[in-house]
């Protein structure tokens, strides 16, 4: 039994599932909201006429340039924290559903090495998050073009794509820990609670000196959500890589052990 066969079946399991479409809709909505903010900044009087621009919004958006680099900067920030949450939702669904739907016991008693399932599911998470990232970038380009922002260059676009996919890779590195919580708690709620907890941790530690050493804060810092990217180096990269290794090892350990079905 090749791992490609197992991967094929894992992809088949996505068919007709609503969650895939919901995640794509959420990412499109994020790009649309960023586009709306840019349009409000570009044409505040029109936004005010439509009741979109209140006093707080004027203060928040005032003074920022209205161009592609600023707009795509918003998109990168959204891709960081949004990606953290989305990767958790994906991992929770891909791993937790087997327990929530009672199919884990069928899967784990198949004549297939159990690590194949773990590996294939992680690949599915990677493909899903990669496609979502590409989709968000495409949606952002369409939104930016619709509101006719100035300053689009190939290097700005390439840099944004690089940062977005880099953040997606970091979010993916955190996903196996969510997967482990999903298989440990045998469902969706545990991993989603854990994901919310990591967002809180990202926010709390992102404002402290420990930010570069906490994987979820590193993603927030890299996205630029906490200001210009500083203080991140090889140590932070090792923390993110270590999170992936730890999460994968824990998930594998759980699935390889016998006492793990419903």
């Amino acid at each position, binding site marked *: *039994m090749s791992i490609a*066969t*197992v991967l*094929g*079946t894992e992809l*088949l*399991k996505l*068919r*007709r*599932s*609503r969650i895939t479409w919901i995640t794509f809709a959420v990412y499109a909505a994020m790009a649309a909201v960023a586009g709306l903010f840019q349009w409000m900044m570009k044409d505040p009087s029109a936004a005010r006429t439509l009741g979109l621009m209140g006093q707080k919004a004027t203060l928040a958006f005032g003074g920022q340039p209205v161009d592609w680099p600023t707009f795509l900067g918003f998109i990168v920030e959204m891709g960081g924290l949004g990606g953290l949450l989305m990767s958790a939702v994906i991992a929770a669904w891909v791993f937790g559903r087997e327990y929530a*739907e*009672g*199919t884990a*016991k*069928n899967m*784990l*008693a*198949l*004549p*297939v*090495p159990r690590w194949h399932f773990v590996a294939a599911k992680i690949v599915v998470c990677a493909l899903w998050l990669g496609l979502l990232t590409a989709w968000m970038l495409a949606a952002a380009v369409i939104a930016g073009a619709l509101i006719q922002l100035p300053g689009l260059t190939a290097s700005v676009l390439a840099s944004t794509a690089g940062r977005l996919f880099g953040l997606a890779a970091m979010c993916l590195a955190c996903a196996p820990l969510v997967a482990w919580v999903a298989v440990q708690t045998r469902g969706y709620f545990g991993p989603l609670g854990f994901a919310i907890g990591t967002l809180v941790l990202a926010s709390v530690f992102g404002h402290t000196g420990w930010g570069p050493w906490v994987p979820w804060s590193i993603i927030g810092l890299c996205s630029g959500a906490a200001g210009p990217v500083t203080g991140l180096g090889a140590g932070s990269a090792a923390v993110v890589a270590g999170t992936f290794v730890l999460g994968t090892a824990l998930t594998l350990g759980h699935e390889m*052990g*016998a*006492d*793990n*079905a*419903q």
Partner: protein
Amino acid sequence: MTDQSLAISTRGLARNYGDVAAVAGIDLHVRRGEIYGFLGRNGAGKTTTIRMLLGLVKPSAGTISLLGSSLDDDRRAVLSRIGYFVESAAAYPHLTVRENLDIQRRLTGSPPAAVDRVMDLLRLREYQRRTASRLSLGNRQRLSLARALLHAPELLVLDEPANGLDPAGIVEIRALLRRLSDEEGVTVFMSSHLLDEVEQLADRVGIIHDGRLVEEVDCRLLPAEETLEEHFLRLTTEMLRGETQ
């Protein structure tokens, strides 16, 4: 009797959960080609035993041999010869009957024609494009049985296979299991609470109580004045009384 002549052989099989012995050292000997009913009250240890047979729960003690081999020695080779159905009729709810079976087909390396074969066998063809979430409980049960039969296993391990089936469905499944045993030599190890069904279908039954195999009965040798159900209730009630005294 060598292990090769047995489809299932366990020695001192036990599983403890903390201080509680869910299964307390049972020796099972199920011959190839026979239909063996595994009976017990709720909590007697039936499902834990079945899970241990399939490698889903690790035994605290004892050995298991399936079709002459140990799961520990060659898990994949052994499991590829076993069809199983544990507790509930689980399927991917948003996938169709055909897609659910296709996943099983790919993961067991079965030919594409196997899907059509089991759909015909379990009368699921008319539902092949229906998602599992829209199937009745009985048809979900059929789907689980179809999944278990897809790779033409030599041994079927079934936990409550008739659960949710209507009377006609129960008779149909009984006939199917009997035919698989008689014509194809498939061994069936099944637990069920439908004792009348087990009596009609099984060659032998094993009764588990409090984690111990307390009796094995050849269904053909049951006294005419006592049904299997009466025998089971009498035995387990006596044991319960003994425990409380």
